């Protein structure tokens, strides 16, 4: 039987976050803020018997989650730039319908429920 990756992933991400908080490391926090929701979604998607098209949609979902948190690039902008809230809100407006629509697109029919 294949071993579940969930405990390893959960432990690594939890420990990673604690170390990040202890060190106050901005870059690590930014990476984990991007990684944690994406990994949670990706792990949940493993339950689905997805066809090829579904896998592509799932990949897009994960990328959407990454992009959502990729707004951490904001820290590359000069502090106080009025561009910051504009980028944040643009991503918000773009992703608010996109992520749920991809969820609906990858939703398995009744006869292909969860594994």
């Amino acid at each position, binding site marked *: 039987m294949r071993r579940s990756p969930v*405990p390893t992933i959960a432990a690594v991400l939890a420990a990673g976050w604690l170390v990040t908080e202890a060190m106050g490391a901005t870059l690590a926090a930014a990476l984990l803020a991007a990684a944690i*929701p994406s990994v949670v*979604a990706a792990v949940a998607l493993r339950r689905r018997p997805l066809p090829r098209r579904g896998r592509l949609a799932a990949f897009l979902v994960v990328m959407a989650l990454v992009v959502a948190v990729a707004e951490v690039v904001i820290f590359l902008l000069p502090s106080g730039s009025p561009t910051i809230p504009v980028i944040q809100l643009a991503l918000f407006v773009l992703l608010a319908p996109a992520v749920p629509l991809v969820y609906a697109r990858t939703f398995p029919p009744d006869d292909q429920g969860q594994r």
Partner: protein
Amino acid sequence: MVWAALLLLVLLLAVWGAREAKDATAFFAASRRAGSVLAGLGGTAAGLSAFVFVGGPGLFATMGVASLWIILSAPLTGALQCWAVGEPLVELTRSHNCLTIPDVVAARFGNGLPRALSATAVIAGGVAMLAVQAKGVGVLGEVLVHVPGWQAATAVLAATALYTAAGGMRAGLLAEAAQGLIMAVAAVAISAAALWQAGGPTAALRTIAHLRPELLDAWGKPGAVSALSLFLLFGLGTCAQPHYLQKFLLLRDRKCLRWMPLVMTVSLAAVLTVWVGLGLGATAMWADGNLHLSSPDQLAPAFLSAAGGTLLALALIAVAAAVMSTAATLMNLVAAAVVRDLPSAVGRVPARSLWPARAATVAVGLFALLLAFHTERTVGLLGVLGWGTFTAALLPSILVGLNWSGATRSGCLAALVIGPLTQLALELAHSGHLMLRWEPGLTGAAIGTLALVGLSVGGKKGCPEIAPTGAGGEDEGLD
């Protein structure tokens, strides 16, 4: 006139609810008849309190765009909840007839301590959140309509208790869906008015950039790690909030999950426009000297008082809707924990009659009211519990436990104890200005997750994938 009409609606809802709620499934799980729209709107309404209308804009005036990290996860949370916990919850609910979140924990990890500890977390966090709702209504009542705070809080909680005690979630869910719609419409209208009065979003941003540039710092004074902690706490934390998760137990079938994230996310985004629109517009007016405040917290009340007329009335109705929807779900959850989950945890069969649940609903509302207005310090401490407590206590067992069949009972118990204790210790340290870098709820959840994984991997092998404990379901008898 408006308030009389609302009172009449509440009375009609209570009468209808009392006739419809005839068994525990109707009272605690709205007869499992909810579709995507009802459950999605209800989830958003229950999840958002008056804080969004008043505290959020005030936070924008204090922290600027750094406060947006709290709401930036909103586009993800609906889908994330359904993927990570909604789908397993619906499966478990079908197979074990679960009516409450402690039922789910018991179905997965066995009856006894797992059910008792998760019920305790629901009671502690739920009462804390209810007390804060009562306090919030009191403050708003004094500022916006100039009535004593305790009177405003009593009126709103009594109205909520009336239909919740009579009809449970059967009446509560219907009210929440309507309240969610009201909140969304009011939020968009208030935001548009605030931005229009500030000369539009571009002009508002220009004003802030010129007069208060520090408010455009992406991370704010606490720094990047704290800002990103908020993003994660409110993004992942939704997977552990009982008032959100409860909506998955009310769905009529698995297919309803398909469009639920869209309903949740669109309604959530609509309500959150008030945080950004009122925050940005009114802060620009304040910076420009067109709005006078004694403190940034007064931003929303000051703007709404100045606007007066229809906008003020709309805001009052929206705030009342926000408080009532959150309070109704919390009263139902805490009442279920008291009359169903705790007795079941010690092997007793819960009463078949709904009267103990009805009495508990009223008692919970009354207790929260007394706590809010008679024990200032306790409320201060309990106020910081709530979202963080639910995250620290339940996130490991729900998120990891429902997605990993190897998670064991001892791992779950460790997470349910260590997570909230860590959170409480850090909250106490924060009140003494110590260890400020550590976000209490998230740190508690991380340590709880490590405990759950460590004890499960290192513990006894061969734990059943889903413990067949007969959790929930009075129709088939309890345990």
